[in-house]
């Protein structure tokens, strides 16, 4: 009986040795995002034009429950407001405005139907479309999810707005209970198809969890973690927008 068990153990150890170790978390900045998660080759042309020519930038965040925070200090702490603050700091000579169109318990299809009205009301240069969570929870047919994304993105492109797709949060406690994979894949495919940036919130939060930047396993009603995470998400999107629209913040030019 002993030899097969020892063999199994040895095989397990071999697998372990073959795997890369995890990087030490200590010397990292909190919520630093590696470039490969944030920067791609898809460009934001309308944003570049609006910022360069008109010195104005209107961004609309369309999304569901994970784009807001509850409580009296929720709205200024949620990532849309943090994005606005971060962009204003990075682009002091551009009038940045972030509006939100957040409705809880909405699937991608529900949200896609509101895009035409959003274009008419807000005339955004850029729409950040956060979606996928409820579709995964309700197990919407991935084909229908994809069709809804395509419809929404096409409406926005026709209306002259750039689009960034934002996928689900990384939620380690509920991971076994919701199969996010097919929906995240669809979002990646649609982003590739229309050559629009995908803000891979899932991979980014996963990275923060793996490096120890945040303890996303934490339970309890405490708001501190949620505020910190949203602040980091807001800053990361700001960095993505600046990169994808080739906006050169003046302070960096002056400083270096």
């Amino acid at each position, binding site marked *: 009986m002993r030899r097969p068990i020892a063999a199994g153990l040895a095989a*397990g150890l071999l697998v372990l040795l073959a795997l890369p*170790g995890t990087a030490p978390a200590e010397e990292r900045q909190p919520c630093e995002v590696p470039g490969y998660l944030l920067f791609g080759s898809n460009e934001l042309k309308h944003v570049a034009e609006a910022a360069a020519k008109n010195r104005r930038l209107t961004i609309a965040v369309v999304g569901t429950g994970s784009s807001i925070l509850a409580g009296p200090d929720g709205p200024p702490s949620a990532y849309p407001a943090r994005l606005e603050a971060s962009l204003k700091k990075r682009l002091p000579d551009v009038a940045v405005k972030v509006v939100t169109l957040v409705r809880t318990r909405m699937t991608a299809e529900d949200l896609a139907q509101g895009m035409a009205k959003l274009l008419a009301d807000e005339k955004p240069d850029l729409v950040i479309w956060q979606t996928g969570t409820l579709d995964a929870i309700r197990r919407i047919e991935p084909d229908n999810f994809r069709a809804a994304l395509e419809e929404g993105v096409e409406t926005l492109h026709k209306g002259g707005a750039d689009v960034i797709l934002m996928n689900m949060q990384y939620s380690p406690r509920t991971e076994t209970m919701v199969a996010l994979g097919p929906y995240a894949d669809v979002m990646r495919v649609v982003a590739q198809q229309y050559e629009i940036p995908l803000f891979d919130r899932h991979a980014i939060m996963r990275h923060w969890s793996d490096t120890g930047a945040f303890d996303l396993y934490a339970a309890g009603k405490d708001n501190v973690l949620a505020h910190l995470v949203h602040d980091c998400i807001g800053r990361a999107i700001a960095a993505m927008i600046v990169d994808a629209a080739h906006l050169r913040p003046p302070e960096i030019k002056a400083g270096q």
Partner: protein
Amino acid sequence: MHAPVVATTTTTGRDLRLDLFRGIALWLIFLDHIPSNLVAWATIRNYGFSDATEIFVFVSGYTAAFVYGKEMRERGFIIAGAHILRRAWQIYVAHVFLFAIYLAEISYVATSFENPLYAEEMNILDFLKQPDVTIIQALLLKFKPANMDVLPLYIILLLLFPPILWLLQFRSTLALGASVLLYVLTWEFNWNMPSYPSGHWYFNPFAWQLLFVFGAWCALGGAQRLSGILQSPVTLAIAIAYLLFAFVISLTWYVPGLGQYVPHWIEENIYPIDKVNLDVLRFAHFLALAVVTVWFVPRDWPFLKSWWAWPPIVCGQHSLEIFCLGVFLSFAAHFAMVEISGAFWMQSLISVLGILIMIAVAVLLTWYKRAESRSGSRPKKTPDADLAGGEA
């Protein structure tokens, strides 16, 4: 180096490679089902289009045909068909058992976790508000929580298996042709089974039956008919080239910078690679893996009878029990990672421990079976249920 346990099964002419690869597939499915598990990077789904599910379905079709086909020839359609249906019932019971564990887990999370960051994710608890509907839908196999899609697929495949097996015995080409036709029609007309609360089955039985029937067809003489093709170096070269292509494409999923080097026409043609309907790229990837495996792993490979091969083989021989245990262990592993530590050492420890538990239970099941057959409490007339376990 001679394992007596293995020797008892070789006398039946059973191909130990099947048990070996199904055992390995069971381990991989367990590793893949633990969320956030870095050890799962070592599993095949990250290096190509297909994953352990394909191996599992194919091998199950193969063993089901092997075991029940023999019985059908010796004892007739009714007896073999009845045994197949009994097996389907056992799998149904196992599925309901896993559902109970899932309910326990999600209910625990519902009461213990109130992080405001994840207010939206808590919508997963919606279904607990209507237990009357949800539980009935689960019993009807329409409500299937994450990672619990494989057993319902097996139940359907086995329920429909008796007539297919009958046809395979007498008109094997016709049976395989019908299976391919059903697969093609499924793609053409988007057939699938409905799910609750919306959508369709994650493993579309009308599409995945192709792999199961193909496995059964191989077991009943198809493999010999293919041997000319399988032994051709041209086939091997094509298979290796395709595996390399799939590997390069899969790299672009994890190293985003590489995506720009993939020509657009390739992207437009291969995506999305549909797991629900067993995309033809996935099927081809499995075939390529099988061709390479058959080429390099001969049936009489001495390793198969060594102690090293014995742990996965013994797991593969009790596939239903070990599969269920794997799903349960992956829940437990996730729980341990949430409550104790999600660090890499913990993930590694859990992964190794889980596989050791799977081996230990498989050994225990073998012991039970031997003890029972010795005491004569179970008449030896019925086909070996655990070999048939294959069938799961």
